[in-house]
C-alpha cells in the first residue's frame, strides 16, 4: 500500500506541444486526484498520446508546466520515472525477443534481481494470459497478445501512477474485462491510473473522472454521471459526440 503523499497525482497547466505545422496540444490543463482512475477521452489525433508522453517524461512540452506526483516532468524527470509505469502506444516491446525475455529484460531495468525478474515475468505472463506463448518471439504474436504483453511489462514493479495509453484497443471482450479488473486492483492498492481510451463504455464503467479532449485541449471534465447530467445526454457516447462534432466546435 502506498501512503498518499500527494493528494494530486497529475497537475498540468497550459501544456503546449507542436510538431512542425501541427499543434498537437494547445493549452491543456488537467488535475488528477491521487488514487483515482482517470480517463482521457478524445477522437484520433486529439492529443491524448502526446499528453501522456509529456506527462511520462518522453516529450518536453513547448509551453506550460506539469507536475506528476509532486515532481516537475521536465526539471525532475528522473524522480517522475522512479514512480510511474507506462504502457500502450507510447511504449513497446522488442519483437525479436520472446515474451518472457522481454519481461525479464525490462524487470532487470526496473531494478529487480535476476531471480526476481524471472519470477515476476512468470506472474504477469500468467495474469495476462500469455504463459502459453511466453517462449515465442513477439513478432509471432497477434495484435491483442502484443497489447497484453505491453501491459504486462508495465505491471512488473509497483508504480504510484500507471499511464495506460489505449490499454484495451484491439483486445477481445474477455481480455478487456481482465484488463479492467487489473486497473481496478491497481487503484484499490492506492495507485493512480491515467488511461486514454476511445471506448466510452470503458470510461463510463472504469473511470472516476474523465476529461474529453479535442484539438489538443480539454473541452469537458467531470465524473461520467455529471457529464451526462450537464449535457442532458443519456450516454457518454452522446456526450462525446456532442462535444467533439466538428460542426459544433468546442462546446466547453
Amino acid at each position, binding site marked *: 500500500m502506498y501512503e498518499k503523499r500527494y493528494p494530486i497525482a497529475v497537475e498540468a497547466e497550459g501544456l503546449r506541444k507542436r510538431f512542425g505545422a501541427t499543434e498537437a496540444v494547445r493549452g491543456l490543463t488537467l488535475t488528477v486526484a491521487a488514487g483515482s482512475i482517470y480517463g482521457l477521452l478524445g477522437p484520433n489525433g486529439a492529443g491524448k498520446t502526446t499528453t501522456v508522453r509529456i506527462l511520462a517524461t518522453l516529450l518536453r512540452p513547448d509551453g506550460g508546466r506539469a507536475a506528476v506526483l509532486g515532481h516537475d516532468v521536465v526539471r525532475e524527470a528522473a524522480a517522475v520515472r*522512479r514512480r510511474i509505469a507506462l504502457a500502450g502506444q507510447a511504449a*513497446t516491446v522488442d519483437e525479436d525477443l520472446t515474451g518472457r525475455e522481454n519481461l525479464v529484460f525490462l524487470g532487470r531495468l526496473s531494478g529487480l534481481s535476476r531471480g526476481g525478474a524471472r519470477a*515476476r515475468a512468470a506472474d504477469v505472463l500468467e495474469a495476462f494470459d500469455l504463459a502459453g506463448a511466453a517462449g515465442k518471439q513477439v513478432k509471432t504474436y497477434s495484435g491483442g497478445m502484443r497489447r497484453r504483453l505491453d501491459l504486462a511489462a508495465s505491471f512488473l514493479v509497483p508504480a504510484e501512477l500507471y499511464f495506460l495509453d489505449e490499454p484495451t484497443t484491439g483486445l477481445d471482450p474477455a481480455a478487456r474485462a481482465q484488463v479492467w479488473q487489473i486497473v481496478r486492483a491497481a487503484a484499490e492498492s492506492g495507485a493512480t491510473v491515467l488511461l486514454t481510451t476511445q471506448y466510452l463504455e470503458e470510461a463510463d464503467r472504469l473511470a472516476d473522472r474523465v476529461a474529453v479532449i479535442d484539438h489538443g485541449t480539454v473541452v469537458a471534465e467531470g465524473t461520467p454521471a455529471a457529464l451526462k447530467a450537464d449535457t442532458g445526454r443519456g450516454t457518454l457516447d452522446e456526450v462525446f459526440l456532442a462535444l467533439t462534432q466538428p460542426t459544433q466546435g468546442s462546446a466547453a
Partner: protein
Amino acid sequence: MTVIVAGPRPEPPGPWTATLAFGYRALLKIRHVPEQLFDVIAIPVVFTLMFTYLFGGALAGSPGRYLPFLLPGTLVMAVLLVSMYAGIGLNTDVGKGITGRFRSLPVWRPAPVAGAVLGDVARYLIAAGLVTVLGVIMGYRPPGGPAGVLAGIGLLLVFALSLSWAWTALGLLLRTPQAVMSTGTVVLFPLTLASNVFVQPPTMPGWLQAFVGVNPVSHLVTAERGLLGGHPAPGQIAWVLLAAAALAAVFAPLTGYLYTRRA
C-alpha cells in the same frame, strides 16, 4: 490476482546492471536473428575464397602465397561491414518506439547505447573469429601466432567501435533500417575495395593510389598485416588509433545529440 504487488518499488538499477541488461538483450537478438549477422559476413567469406583460389595464383604466384596477404584484409572487411548493424539496430529501436519505454524507465541515460556496444563487441568477435577460422582451414598460419591474432582483433575492435558511432548517428538521421543499410554499403564498399585489401597500390593508376594512400581502411589493413604477420608497425597502429579517436570524437557527441532529439 498476483499481478498487483503492494509494497515499495525496487531501487532503480545501477549504471553497470542497466548496461548489462541492454547487453543481454543484444546477445538475445544475435541468437534469435543470426541471419542478420551472416548476411553481411557472407561477403568477406566469399571474397576470401574467390580471390584466394581464383586470383591468388595470378596475383601472388600461388593461392597459398596470396592468402597471408589477403586474410588480414578480409578480416577488416568483415568486421567493418558488421559494424553497420550498430546503426541499423538503433534505427529499428527508434522506429518501433521501444526507446520510448527505455526512456520512461529510471535507468542511467547512456545505458542503452553502452549495452549495445557490448552486443557489438560480441558481433565483431563472431565475425573476426569466423574469418580467422576460415583462413586457418584454408591453410593460413599467422606468423604472429595467437598473440598477433589477438592483438590484431583487438585493434580492429577499437576501430570498429569508433566507426560504429558514425553508423549510430546515421541510424538516427535516416528514416528506415533499409536506408541505413544501403547508405552504409555505399560508403563501405568503395572504402574497402579501393584500398590495399586485395592488391598492393603500386599496380594502380596514380589517382587511385592517391585515394588508397589516404583511405583509413588501407592503414588499418597494413596495421593488421603487421600484427598478424609478426612484424607490428607502430606507426600504422598509431595512425589507426588516431583515426579511431577522431571518429569517436566527432560522431559520439553527434549521436548523443541526435538521440535526445529523436528517441
